[in-house]
């Protein structure tokens, strides 16, 4: 093997950049099969009740309308088992138009299909729906817990958390709440579906072509081989596009009924209702510590909102079990049903909001102890995962602390609330740890060496905008000893060798080993052909064959090109295939670690809060691409800051309808909000997880950010904001 190592870790620009810039990159909505029609939804305006009647007469008379589907005429379909093992997860288990029942505002009640998008939309506005409304709606988690209580999901305990808490000299007991956040990728959910001879072909904005294929095969009761799903490019997903949502099923069903391809693009408003969101959480944290800061007890007990049509558990305490050394711990999760759409995973599900609570509580504990919050975390560091009772394969959190603190200038922090100033502004410095599981899933890949000296890689995984195309090209280039521009990466097609969903930050760790092994298999294959009769190297000893730069050399230095090896065999290519497994069962726990240091300014005279500076150090194993990895972490930091300061889907408490369902009123940061970002990537390979030592990088940067911001806000203002987002009205004095 002749891996050229220099390209691994290099700052390679995205290989798909030119395609994206020039518009050659095709997203789901860019596919226009012959005879295309266009669908537009009619969405429930009530949150709970029944559809009494649907008057489609006016809509059917509109120009270009082909049909209006609803529960009265939509074909009867099947539900998906929603199994991760079977790879057919859905979070909203109900199939659209199953019956007349309404479970949330924004639920599909009809689908209009017409010869153009404009005709479909105009007709959809003419569909008249009457409802029998249950006005006793449950709009928020607080209302749900009060009216409906909660349902236990899971828990875990070690030691005696209650006893240790009671006898400890220092305690923190606080409840933290986080709002619904809505994934708002630029590309809203899009499906193009067509049926040919009983086969379903779908172009979908999905993070998982295999999962989507399997789910649709269950829903339409088809052999999986009769469903093909494409997702060449995805305008990001943030978890919202992991699973199939009702629009995809509705579109495929309509296409079958009409016998024509149907395109559906979810309007921005409905991104807030029928395609998932980060659930609302209420997190009760109790910490206890000794005088020197040693944690004696940790409890992190959680309830999150879910829906009538799917139970989603937000694993808020996922990181709590293993981040700190503590013998006495209890975590638990429960859900409570609101009359809202079904939640789902959103970038860094669990830890994304869970570390807001834990790391805020750690800051509160540091204040009680009179201890530097960084020292408190150092004190309780563990290189062993107490949850799994295994050593971490590679945990450099202490180095993260050191390097980020040094770069940030943490030693110059004065601990007093409001003690650091810059003219009219109060400066706050806060920090928090971040953490994410390092996961790896089984993956197949195919690598083909072609007779023109190029190579192609096939895998039924996806690049959701994170750089997967590029890191795979780097690995293939290194393994095949070919320049990047001779490598063609093919992803996003369910007919390719089985690949995992793009989620959980596991794509890189899962795909690289499969591609590398397939590349080596392809090299073995070309060596095999080189030794065959008719080959220019037929007389050489195959044991001496060395592959280098697209050539096979014998023991005497005679080099023959791939083309010249393939030609006598009358072959066009040499193919290698590989299957690689999930995370090895090697006695280690795998995780990524890091820390954020945040500076905020608060100007009380005008109530203006700004995040001015963020220094983050991340230990995510070997960095495969400095550019895309940094880009991922920076993006995650900004998303974490957004969660800290701005994001909240607001529902009318009287009727559970979202009220800020657009880009103007659902706030995310703009360029003018950007702080100075300094990302330190540690780059210590974790060879226990895979041969490249790479862990994932997509999510960890978000975790802990809200706490780092809120802790900095406390340092500046003395106000402990325990309910996100930290908006200016929460920081103003009531007496003003």
């Amino acid at each position, binding site marked *: 093997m002749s891996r050229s190592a220099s390209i691994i870790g290099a700052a390679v620009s995205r290989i798909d950049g030119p395609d994206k810039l020039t518009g050659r990159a095709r997203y789901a909505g860019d596919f226009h099969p012959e005879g295309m029609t266009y669908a537009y939804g009619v969405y429930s305006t009530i949150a709970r009740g029944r559809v009494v009647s649907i008057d489609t007469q006016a809509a059917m008379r509109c120009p270009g309308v082909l049909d209006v589907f609803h529960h009265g005429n939509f074909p009867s379909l099947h539900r998906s088992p929603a199994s991760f093992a079977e790879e057919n997860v859905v979070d909203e288990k109900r199939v659209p138009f199953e019956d007349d029942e309404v479970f949330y505002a924004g639920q599909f009640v009809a689908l209009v299909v017409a010869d153009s998008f404009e005709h479909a939309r*105009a007709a959809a506005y003419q569909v008249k729906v009457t409802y029998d409304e249950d006005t006793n709606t449950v709009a928020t988690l607080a209302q749900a817990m009060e009216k409906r209580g909660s349902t236990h999901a899971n828990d875990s305990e070690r030691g005696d958390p209650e006893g240790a808490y009671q006898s400890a000299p220092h305690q923190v007991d606080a409840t933290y709440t986080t709002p619904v956040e809505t994934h708002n990728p630029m590309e809203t959910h899009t499906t193009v579906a067509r049926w040919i001879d009983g086969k379903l072909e779908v172009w979908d904005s999905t993070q998982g072509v295999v999962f989507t294929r399997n789910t649709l095969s269950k829903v339409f009761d088809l052999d999986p081989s009769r469903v093909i799903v494409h997702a060449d490019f995805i305008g990001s997903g943030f978890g919202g596009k992991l699973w199939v949502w009702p629009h995809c099923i509705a579109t495929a069903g309509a296409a079958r009924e009409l016998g024509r391809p149907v395109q559906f693009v979810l309007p921005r408003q409905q991104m807030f209702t029928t395609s998932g969101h980060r659930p609302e959480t209420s997190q009760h944290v109790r910490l206890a510590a000794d005088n020197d800061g040693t944690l004696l007890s940790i409890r992190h007990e959680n309830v999150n909102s879910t829906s009538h049509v799917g139970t989603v558990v937000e694993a808020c305490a996922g990181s709590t079990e293993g981040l700190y050394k503590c013998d006495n711990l209890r975590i638990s999760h429960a859900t409570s049903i609101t009359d809202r759409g079904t939640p789902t995973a959103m970038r860094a599900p669990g830890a994304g909001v869970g570390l807001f609570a834990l790391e805020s509580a750690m800051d509160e504990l540091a204040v009680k102890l009179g201890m530097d919050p960084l020292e408190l975390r150092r004190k309780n560091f563990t290189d062993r995962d107490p949850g799994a009772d295994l050593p971490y394969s590679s945990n450099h959190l202490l180095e993260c602390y050191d390097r980020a603190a040094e770069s940030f200038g943490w030693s110059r922090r004065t601990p007093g609330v409001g003690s650091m100033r810059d003219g009219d502004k109060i400066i706050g410095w806060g920090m928090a740890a971040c953490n994410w599981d390092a996961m790896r899933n089984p993956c197949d890949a195919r690598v083909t060496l072609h007779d023109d000296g190029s190579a192609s890689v096939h895998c039924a995984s996806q690049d959701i905008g994170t750089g997967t195309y590029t890191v795979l090209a780097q690995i293939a280039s290194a393994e095949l000893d070919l320049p990047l521009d001779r490598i063609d990466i093919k992803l996003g097609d369910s007919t390719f060798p089985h690949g995992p969903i793009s989620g959980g930050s596991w794509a890189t760790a899962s795909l690289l080993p499969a591609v590398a092994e397939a590349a080596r298999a392809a090299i073995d294959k070309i060596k095999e052909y080189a030794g065959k009769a008719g080959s220019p190297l037929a007389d050489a000893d195959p044991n001496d064959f060395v592959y280098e730069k697209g050539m096979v050399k014998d023991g005497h230095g005679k080099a023959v090109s791939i083309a010249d090896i393939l030609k006598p065999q009358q072959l066009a290519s040499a193919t290698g295939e590989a299957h690689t497994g999930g995370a090895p069962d090697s006695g280690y726990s795998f995780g990524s670690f890091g820390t954020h240091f945040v500076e905020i300014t608060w100007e009380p*005279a005008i109530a203006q809060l700004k995040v001015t500076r963020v220094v983050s150090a991340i230990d995510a194993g070997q960095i495969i691409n400095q550019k895309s990895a940094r880009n991922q972490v920076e993006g995650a930091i900004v998303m974490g800051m957004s969660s800290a300061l701005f994001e909240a889907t607001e529902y009318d408490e009287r009727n559970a309808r979202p009220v800020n369902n657009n880009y103007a009123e659902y706030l995310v940061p*703009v360029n003018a909000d950007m702080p100075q970002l300094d990302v330190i990537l540690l780059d210590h390979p974790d060879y226990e997880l895979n041969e490249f030592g790479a862990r994932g990088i997509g999510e960890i940067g978000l975790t802990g950010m809200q706490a780092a911001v809120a802790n900095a806000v406390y340092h500046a203002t003395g106000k402990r904001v325990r309910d996100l987002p930290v908006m200016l009205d929460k920081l103003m004095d009531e007496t003003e």
Partner: protein
Amino acid sequence: MRQFEYKRAENTRGAVHAHAGQASAYLAGGTTLIDLVKLDIMQPERLVDVNRLDLADIEHSDGGTLKIGAMVRNTTLAYDQTVQTDYSVLSEALLQGASRQLRNRATTGGNVMQRVRCSYFRDGVSPCNKREPGSGCSAIDGHNREVFAVLGTSEHCIAVHPSDMCVAMAAIGATVHLASADSERAVDFLDFHRLPGDTPHIEHDLKDDELITHITLDAPIKGAGSTYIKLRDRSSYQFALASCAAIVALDGDTIREARIALGGVGTKPWRCKQAEAALQGASATDESFKQAAQIAMEGATPYKHNAFKIPLARKAIVRALRDAAERARRSAGEPT
């Protein structure tokens, strides 16, 4: 398909003629109109495109006033030399509104006419007295933090007039010039927008057969300093939670004349004449500014989620007055 007629007007007379007597809408920048038509909130039967009208000039006119054509784009107005020099409060207000792309399209007349951002108005479903007179106001007991007023509200409507530009114009003093087919009239800018009262669907004093042709700004106050302070959650592309346009002219350290207008808190661009009167003759100190801020927000009505806007508006007023006075001092060449 909802059909509508499109007419391109070649002159003012043609525009008002085409607009009168129809369920018509003038199409200028389209930044509000097209949005609301796509949401099916506005259903004009006829669009009268006024983009070709000869109303895109900014000219000096009698008595030092400035005449701004209704079709002058927000970007053009914000960067106009005279506006930047003599009416910097207006330039600042414009540049803190919307986004560059929107400002490139949005017009002076259209900005005056922009509709509210109330989510209940925009959802097409909730009771809303603006959209469906008599149906009720969903915002009063609903989610009412961001774009809801504390001044000038009624039990029928609490939506904020969202403009920044209009707040600056209210402070400067301006006249709205309206033309019909056979006559012209002028309306004081402060009287152009209506309080919601029990007719929130009537938002302004423009009749069906009229068109805004231009807006005249009063002559700048000699030696005055001015500024626009806009407070919001994020740094750009958000409507004001509270904003203040302030103009201050000094005699030494005494306030000769002050102007205060507020955005983000009123159901119309909100001029604070009582607070201004209290400042006249007072010394230009934080105490005076705080007192003026108190007076300006007297009688404000807080709702469930927007009570913070009352102290926030006071902060905007104090900061704007302080900065405007500072600029007045500087322009007078006094040591600061």
